[in-house]
């Protein structure tokens, strides 16, 4: 360390103490960071709020060039696109009629069975303004934070399916941990992998698994409750196990791997410019006049007569 050697006396002592402080501080931050200590969360929020506008500003010319290239490519085959869109419109009109019929039928069946509806969700669209950039983790930064009513744990989707979940929220920015990140673990259901019910109760067997990110494009399907029925091409959707993800959001399709099963994701990470963040609008307030169904003594008490029976 020529620079340190060239100094003498107080300067040398200062340099060494600075170095010692830096090493101790670095190790301390690393230990806290490696153990995901929540005390570091405010630091992450501040950094998100500061960095999001800067990366958004710096990336503007790059986005412009990318969009211009994409638009020019689109302009060249505008005739072909127009023809495809017309065909799509015809098909979509047919599907709209089918969907309307299903919706009516669904509503009638719900009314017949007195079904309690799933929690209500709304969504907010956010722009991706930053990416983790390195090869060690896979996350993106969006330009909506607490001001957009986003909370940690909220689910992010693109047009195709689930992208990841919000892990850190600043005032005006948030970070999404992608499904492909090594730290990502998502409880899922493999649709069609369980046995169909042979009894009158109509309850089909549900095969659950955990989707484990490994920094590759196709996360691994692990800890399946049953592997015999899993086949390539089966749909993977979120399960509500753990209460983080709502049930039934599309994730991807099963594909076979030499070691087991992986999932080809529906989300298009290549063109991830905007994401939708699901906002849980479920009313969890407890009625003031509600009473306990089971008393502390264990005897059943009368339910609130105002509440509809479920």
């Amino acid at each position, binding site marked *: 360390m020529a620079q340190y050697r060239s100094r003498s006396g107080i300067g040398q002592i200062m340099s060494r103490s600075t170095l010692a402080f830096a090493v101790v501080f670095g190790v301390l931050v690393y230990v806290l960071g*490696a153990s995901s200590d929540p005390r570091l969360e405010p630091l992450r929020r501040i950094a998100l709020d500061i960095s999001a506008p800067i990366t958004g500003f710096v990336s503007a010319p790059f986005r412009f060039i990318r969009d211009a290239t994409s638009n020019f490519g689109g302009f060249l085959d505008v005739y072909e696109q127009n023809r495809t869109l017309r065909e799509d419109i015809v098909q979509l009109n047919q599907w709209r009629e089918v969907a309307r019929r299903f919706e009516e039928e669904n509503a009638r069946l719900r009314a017949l069975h007195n079904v309690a509806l799933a929690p209500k969700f709304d969504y907010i669209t956010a722009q991706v303004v930053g990416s983790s950039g390195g090869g060690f983790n896979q996350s993106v930064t969006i330009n909506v934070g607490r001001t957009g009513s986003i909370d940690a744990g909220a689910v992010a989707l693109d047009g195709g399916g689930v992208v990841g979940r919000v892990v850190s929220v600043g005032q005006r920015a948030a970070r999404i941990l992608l499904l492909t990140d090594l730290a990502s673990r998502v409880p899922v259901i493999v649709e069609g992998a369980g046995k169909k019910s042979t009894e009158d109760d109509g309850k089909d067997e549900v095969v659950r698994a955990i989707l484990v990110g490994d920094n590759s494009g196709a996360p691994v399907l692990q800890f399946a409750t049953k592997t015999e029925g899993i086949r390539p091409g089966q749909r993977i959707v979120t399960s509500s196990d753990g209460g983080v993800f709502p049930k039934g959001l599309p994730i991807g399709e099963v594909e076979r791997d030499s070691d087991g099963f992986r999932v080809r994701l529906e989300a298009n990470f290549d063109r991830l410019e905007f994401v939708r963040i699901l906002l849980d609008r479920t009313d969890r307030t407890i009625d003031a006049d509600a009473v306990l169904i089971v008393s502390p003594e264990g005897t059943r008490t009368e339910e609130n007569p105002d509440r509809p029976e479920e």
Partner: protein
Amino acid sequence: MKRDPLSVWAILAIIVTMTTGIALSALPLGAGPDAMIWPNFLLCVSFFWLVHRPLGLPTIAVLFVGLMDDLIGGGVLGAGMLALLIGSLIVRAGSDSLVRSAFGPRWLAFAGFAAVVFVIEWGLTSLPRWSPLPVGVPFAQFLVTVLAYAPVSVLFRKVLRIGRT
């Protein structure tokens, strides 16, 4: 060796280039597995200043920059910071000879510096998971970072009139 005194412009240039280096490393050019392999500009900029203006990038500044990069990147907090700190100490040790050397050996030294930083960050990121991270993407990023140093260095020399080839 006698160091060039730090002017206000040099300090300003260091702050602006380091901030830009961090921001460029976090550009949203694709995401996740489909993200474009993008150089770690922070390493290029840090190495340049550590060689040409080591007094302008003191240890505390390296620590701060590394911390900011970790916070913005979203990885294991402290892993990149410690890696950059250790790498910077190695570069400081040889900065006197590096500043006098030709561009070729300096570029080679940068490759060594980047390799040290990537390997340490890889190790520190793998450690909490008790399993080694895949090396494919980090290695590819290391290669493009080494390639990116040449144009960054030339640009700085031309624009800021610092250093020599």
